[in-house]
């Protein structure tokens, strides 16, 4: 691995959304989010609310 590539890996190891501009509450417009899709198979659809406890 070249020196430049190694430096790039070391410099960015987490997500980076850049300089924060604002924090808002977004409410989808009616019809903007697709209707809830039917499950692919009954046993494949978890009942619990999804969550992402840590970034990515």
């Amino acid at each position, binding site marked *: 691995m070249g020196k430049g590539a190694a430096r790039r890996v070391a410099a960015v190891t987490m997500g980076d959304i*850049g300089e924060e501009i604002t*924090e*808002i509450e977004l409410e989808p*417009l009616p019809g903007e989010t697709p209707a809830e899709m039917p499950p*692919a198979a009954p*046993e494949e659809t*978890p009942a619990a609310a999804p969550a992402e*406890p*840590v970034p*990515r």
Partner: protein
Amino acid sequence: MTAPPGEGVPGFSRRDLPLAAGTVTGVRLWRVDRTAAEAVMNGAPVPGEGLLTGVFGGVWQRGENVAACGGGGLGAPPCPHDLVPAPGCGCGFWAYWAPRYAWRCDYYWRAEVIGIVQGYGRTRIGTRGCRCAKARILGLYVRPAAPGRPPSDGPSPHDLTGILASYYGVPCYPSLAELLAACPLTADYLPRRQRHLATSPALSPGALTLPAPLTWLRAIGQAGQPRQP
């Protein structure tokens, strides 16, 4: 102790944010839980909660995903539910305004799947991307296997395309360009001179172009001017 005025009243609490109608769309990458994908391919129940995972964990499910905080690391307590994504924490669903910005994170270089998500709810907006409390996948693209890399076990990229499209109920496009064309990214928050990146399927900046040696020498006054025609 007296609660601040408006605390606990929807719309008047200090925790409430300016409300805007709409959503944002950003691009991000995932790794595939190959064990779960193989189970789907074989007609077996999915062992986990989904097929697409973040590098630090977090499984994406069909339809709406709602973020919860697992703690800020080093034993920090989780953020209150109504503050996710909190400023000092990494919680929430992350997405970017351009593929290039998603790709610059080193751990993404190993990700097999690129997708576009719709984000809403409490949202932190930055110049490169956003973190949202709620998100859903709009479309996906499975990257081809890297040339020279030995084939991995489990489903091929072609198989994954079908498996993911079926499981998540979203289109899986044959190229990143087609994904971006079908699901345009939010470009409003990108600096004006970088808005073209939102439609560019390039994952990394182009090769560096250095000036030719002669031009370089002329620039520092060590060579003559070019001959006029």
